[in-house]
């Protein structure tokens, strides 16, 4: 069994599985149940001046008969008095001294407000702080959450104010509702952030009821945008994590968040640079017990790969992630159909025919049996056929030796500009 312990910027936890600041971490009762179930850490539901929530708060996007492909909420930060939360944090930490308890914080962007809350939460023994600059709905209309998270200078200033008094590590939680997340990440680091966590939820409207014409969800017939999360956002979160991980101006540990539902998702986020991860929607959907299968799957994976510690995963795929201009234009893959595994649904044919490069033929052999064949010379290696193929092992994307040395776009442009300049020099002469 591999060592699952992690240390995220000085915050230690028995495993990389943390609950994200959200409804499942609303109370001490819940967080303690989570720790009993196996979660290694929890970021408490954001503390600040208690708010009033609406009734009717969540909505989900279901896909092809499966529940909760994506999840949307319009719930705000904690609606419970600060003293109550602090008392429960204290009790929880006392019962679970080895688990990570991180306080998520959100106050108005004023130095004294930040100083006050940091001191109060650190006094009850939290292991770290997470600054909520990401919540996209409700609080943003009051100048907090994503509203301040979308202003890099405000992120930097507020982080700085926190660091002035904080004794525990400070994580800055970033909003994805921004053009380039690395800009904000760099400002957080400039302000002194010890780590970043991302992503917070994405601006969303879960749907419109096509019969009542109300928004989903609606509060008495009226709706407002919410924050989107769950499996559907994973690719967006993963790319943002990867961008921050490979940015030399960021350079702090990452707590990865966004649609993590399985142990495989955890591995992916860690390979892309996360030191630990946070989960919410999977727990909203299945309860805290889901961590058991995630822990077990991760353990077996690490054993299979011969890795002694989960920390060995962190960042291993980051060097493999770069810019489009650095991709080898001479690399070539083609689709190959394995007839013995093909079930003749012809999905590849119609996808290629209508949406790609018309290179998969529907043919009939001498015995009258239908089969599919790729004209490799016309295949551009787009992968579409293998994506739509429902049969295991029926389509392989095979790398071919192009017989040409690798050449990226950037290299090509450099060569061309070199040629052009020598031409123009020649012309001048």
């Amino acid at each position: 069994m591999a060592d699952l312990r992690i240390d995220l910027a000085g915050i230690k936890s028995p495993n990389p599985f943390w609950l994200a600041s959200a409804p499942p971490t609303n109370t001490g009762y819940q967080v303690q149940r989570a720790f009993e179930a196996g979660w290694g850490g929890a970021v408490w539901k954001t503390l600040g001046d208690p708010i009033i929530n609406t009734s009717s708060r969540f909505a989900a996007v279901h896909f092809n008969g499966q529940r909760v492909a994506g999840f949307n909420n319009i719930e705000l930060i904690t609606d419970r008095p600060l003293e109550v939360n602090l008392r429960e944090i204290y009790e929880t930490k006392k019962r679970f001294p080895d688990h990570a308890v991180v306080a998520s914080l959100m106050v108005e962007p004023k130095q004294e407000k930040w100083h006050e809350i940091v001191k109060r939460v650190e006094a009850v023994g939290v292991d770290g702080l997470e600054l909520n600059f990401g919540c996209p709905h409700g609080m943003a209309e009051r100048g907090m959450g994503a509203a301040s998270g979308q202003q890099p200078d405000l992120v930097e200033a507020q982080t700085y104010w926190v660091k002035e008094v904080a004794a525990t590590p400070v994580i800055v939680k970033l909003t994805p509702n921004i053009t380039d997340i690395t800009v904000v990440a760099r400002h957080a680091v400039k302000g002194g952030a010890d780590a970043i966590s991302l992503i917070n939820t994405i601006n969303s409207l879960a749907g419109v009821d096509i019969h009542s014409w109300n928004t989903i969800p609606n509060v008495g017939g009226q709706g407002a945008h919410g924050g989107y999360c769950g499996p559907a956002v994973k690719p967006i979160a993963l790319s943002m994590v990867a961008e921050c991980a490979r940015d030399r101006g960021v350079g702090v540990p990452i707590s990865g968040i966004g649609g993590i539902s399985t142990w495989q998702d955890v591995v992916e986020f860690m390979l892309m640079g996360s030191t630990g991860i946070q989960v919410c929607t999977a727990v909203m959907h299945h309860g805290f017990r889901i961590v058991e299968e995630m822990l077990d799957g991760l353990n077996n994976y690490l054993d299979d790969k011969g890795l002694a510690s989960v920390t060995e995963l962190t960042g291993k795929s980051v060097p493999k992630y770069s810019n489009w201009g650095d991709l080898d234009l001479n690399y070539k893959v083609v689709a190959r159909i394995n007839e013995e595994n093909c079930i003749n649904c012809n999905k590849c044919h119609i996808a290629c025919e209508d949406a790609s490069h018309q290179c998969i033929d529907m043919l009939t052999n001498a015995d009258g049996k239908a089969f599919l064949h790729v004209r490799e010379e016309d295949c551009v290696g787009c992968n579409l056929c293998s994506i739509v193929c429902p049969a295991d092992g029926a389509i392989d994307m095979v790398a071919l030796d192009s017989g040409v040395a690798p050449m990226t776009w950037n290299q090509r442009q450099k060569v061309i500009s070199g040629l052009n300049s020598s031409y123009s020099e020649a012309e001048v002469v």
Partner: protein
Amino acid sequence: MEHASPLNTFTPDMFMRGFAEAEPGLTRKGAIEESNRCLYCYDAPCIKACPTSINIPSFIKRIATDNLKGSAQTIMDSNPVGASCARVCPTEELCEGACVLNDASAPIQIGLLQRYATDWAINSGVQLFKPGLPNGKRVAVIGGGPAGLSAARELAREGFGVVIYEAKELAGGLDTHGIVSFRLPQSIPLWEVEQIGKLGVEIRTGMKVGVDVSVEELKADYDAIVLAAGMGYVPPLGIEGEKLSGVYDAIGLVETTKTGIPALELTGRRVAVIGAGNTAIDAATCSVRLGAANVKMVYRRTPAEMTAYDFEYEFAKQEGVEFSWLTLPKRIIGDELGNVTALECVQMKLTGERGKDGRPTPVPVEGSEFLMPVEAVVVAIGQKRRVDLIEALGLEHERGVVKIDEATGRTSDPQIYAAGDIVFGSGKGEAMVVSAARQGKAAAYAIMKQLLGMQDSALGSILTYISR
């Protein structure tokens, strides 16, 4: 007051339970899950396997996207008796047998999904199709079974004035009268009949051609005639004792159960069913549900040669039906009151020789005669041909099977087309409801071509069915 022995009493309650549809339909959740499992194949093999070429992936996608009207329309557009077929088609041999998921996981339950969509249409009361603009041409359809209804429906949608002459009091043919209620409740084919009636097709029931209306009249009054009169009751076995009380015709037996409690005395009786086709199975399971003490199917060959579908055979076994293979009935024995008391049989063995149909020929084992004590005998050895009607129409036929041009269904009389069981002969596939529907459609399209000069292109993909 004396009560009859409970064992020998068949109550309305028992009838309701025994003859209610046996297989439950899909729930909404079940239908959503199953429909989402469909791969939505391109050029899907299930479509090719359906004699009426229903666009199965499309109707399933419509279920998955909560468009049940569109789904029912897609089904019924291709198959005017698609609600009945959802229940009686041998789907394992057709669409589901062709599903690409057969080896990968499990085939899509196409029959149940088709039933889900058509049940929705039945319950919603929606009218799925409209009649065409009247084109002034008139067609008579003889027989209101699946073939006749399909021909009539397609002709009505194209603007023909169509009259169906149905000999019985209710249209629907075997779907209405000849398939056990626990597989096909009568309300289903009657809905299909009603849908076709709503297109302006006039259905004259209780009208026997040659009796209530003359052939000459039909030929004079209509531009074309579709002969879809099916087949008759079970022919005699040709053995002694067939007139005894307690000897039943399998088709007649099933028919009596379709509208209410039959006036049969099978409760507590031992029943021998002679034959091993799908109708024999229906008669056997019917007997079980009518309270028979024991039901044996008597067949002179072995399970390998029986014509009943595998799923029917399985169903019969589950119902507790027993099988006497390699057993030939020789004589039905009765008591002095004329009631059946036993079936005299002889054991058979298969010889190495094969008959015309390729099946091994059974021969009696000498001295192996034995008595099977039974109180009822149900005969299910096929159906009579309608030779009298065919000859009254002056059509060429081969032992009661109307000769047709396979592509068009046209008979020896260019004014008359034929479809369904009346053209079904040995070596011509299976007498399925869905085949009858296909043939009815084909005849309708051939009539459109003949009378309207419609081009193949206007008829669309149907021509691929005709040529198949």
